[in-house]
């Protein structure tokens, strides 16, 4: 009661009736001016595209045809997708890509954050170096790694030959069996710093007193981590993992530039596949149907994302 802030008011307010809402909206009309620009931009760039994508997914657009001459085909695009073999291959690739990239990036990033938590000489520089891959453009990263993986002059192949572990440089990204893992290594290279930054920030909020108390209670380093640090970071971890998963699910640049989805679709994931369908083969309808399916999957993920975030909100409110 000592402070009547906006939050206190919000908490005290009970569920209002509908007419109440209109009255309140009118009372707060000035407040909307602050969010209006943000909402307007979002509406143009999000709401309209979503509507348009859903509409287009029910139409066929043969190559060479103008978009306005599209032909209504009902759910044909959807059945075509779900019965095609490529769909299942690409979905499998996407799952592997997303799961492996997310999990390994998170583990490496978290471990790096922990290892960098204790102060030592050169910590700042080391941390800065580890972050760089996240900052540079994925296009640059793709070319750097494409050169590293090069089947004739790549440095990894050369090292393997030099060490006698291979007779000739392996084809990392030109072979169906190794292309996806190779690309995942590149993706992790770019993504783990994000997890590291998030977890570093999270670690700074772990109360020192709690760790000291655990030490006094006789907990060893591992027990302190498992019983104090880790539970405290559950929320940050959830948000980080979700953001990583979404970013990976939505990856495009690395597979597109490094392999274009090949060889024989072995590195195609959903997004590159959709892009190729739309802009490569002009099959806008099918691409849109893919997008709608993707949209549904992402909404499901988004539900958990919002729940994780609003969990934070609630904790914040009661603090």
């Amino acid at each position, binding site marked *: 009661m000592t*402070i009547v802030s*906006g*939050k206190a008011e919000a908490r005290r307010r009970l569920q209002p009736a509908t007419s109440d809402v209109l009255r*309140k909206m009118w009372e*707060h009309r000035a*407040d909307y*001016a*602050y*969010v209006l*620009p*943000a909402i307007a*931009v*979002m509406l*143009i*760039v*999000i709401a309209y*595209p979503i509507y348009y*994508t859903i509409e287009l997914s029910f139409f066929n657009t043969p190559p060479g045809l103008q978009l306005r001459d599209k032909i209504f085909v009902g759910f044909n695009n959807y059945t075509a997708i779900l019965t095609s073999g490529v769909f299942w291959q690409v979905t499998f690739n996407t799952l592997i890509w997303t799961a492996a990239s997310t999990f390994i990036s998170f583990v490496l990033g978290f471990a*790096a954050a922990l*290892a960098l938590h*204790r102060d030592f000489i050169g910590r700042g520089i*080391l941390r800065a*170096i*580890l972050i*760089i891959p996240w*900052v540079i*453009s*994925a*296009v*640059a990263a793709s*070319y*750097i790694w494409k*050169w*590293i993986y090069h089947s*004739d*002059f790549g*440095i990894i192949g*050369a090292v393997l030959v030099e060490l006698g572990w291979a007779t000739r*440089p392996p084809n990392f990204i030109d072979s169906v069996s190794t292309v996806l893992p190779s690309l995942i290594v590149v993706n992790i*290279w770019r993504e*783990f710093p994000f997890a590291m930054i998030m977890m570093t*920030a999270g670690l700074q*909020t772990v109360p020192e007193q709690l760790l000291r108390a655990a030490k006094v209670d006789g907990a*060893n*380093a591992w027990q302190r981590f498992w019983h104090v640090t880790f539970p405290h970071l559950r929320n940050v971890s959830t948000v980080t993992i979700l953001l990583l998963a*979404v970013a990976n*699910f*939505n990856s*495009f*640049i690395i597979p597109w530039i490094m392999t274009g989805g090949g060889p024989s679709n072995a590195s195609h994931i959903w997004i590159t596949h959709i892009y190729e369908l739309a802009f490569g083969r002009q099959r806008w309808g099918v*691409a*849109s149907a893919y*997008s709608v399916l*993707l*949209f549904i999957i*992402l909404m499901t993920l*988004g539900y958990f994302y919002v729940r994780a*975030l*609003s969990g934070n909100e609630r904790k*914040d409110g009661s603090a």
Partner: protein
Amino acid sequence: MSTVSETISRGQPARRLRIDGWRWGGRAFLVFMLLYTALPMIWMLLTSIKSGFAAMQFPPQWWPDQPTLASYQKLLDPQNSVGQDFLRFFWNSLIVSTATTILSVIVAVPAAYAFSRFTFPGRNFLFFAVLLRNMFPAVIFLVPLFILMRAIGLVNTHGSLVLTYLTFGLPLAIWLLKGFYDNIPVQLEQAARIDGATRFQAFILIVMPLSAPGIIATAIYSFIGAWNEYIYAYTFLSKNEQLTLPVGIQRFFSENTTDFPGLMAASFMMSVPVVVLFLLLQRYFVRALTEGAVKH
């Protein structure tokens, strides 16, 4: 405290070993991560100072026999066509990224402030709607946005990119800044208003300076995002003189498939502005995350 831990370790030598095991494990891990992170970048730099011929050797020259800055000179020379293109792409990227950054801050600051301070109906819904934008891949919006941009005559303009890039940066910017405003006591503004400031003055004179780290972090994020964006630029722009760096470099490479030193030099120069910017301002970024987003 110290005596306690000493007696414990003397009683149980195994534990001491294990703690050291953790520390050494951590160091070994950091060395591994350093190699994983840095070696590709070092190889990029080493390649970029080789001649085209020297780069294409097997086994490779681990260290360039005759280091040369020819690739850089070529890219930065306004006299030849490669240099002209590269400098133009660089300039385009700078324009687009700067415009995006300024607009992001202008749009995100009031929105984040409102989400933090006001209790208008629909606040939570709108807040999460804004955050949800992060969930969707660029590709979903590509076709309709392309058509939309064509309809409003923005195709092949930088305006189409700025407008689109705004929406990438905004969700995180608003989220970060909201965390900042949540942590600024509302009494500071009240005090300012009683001291004679209008609501707007209280915001500009008192709240804005306090949220400067958040605003800087937001700006970095927007700039880097815009600087590195590829897919929209690739789709929306077709004229050579409009291209931004990521697309421009890709085009350059598809025409000069074997010029790896040139490509590495271009990749390096494309990375320099964002890396420098980030390294200079990274403490704001981590602070913004700690104070803003993560603390909730």
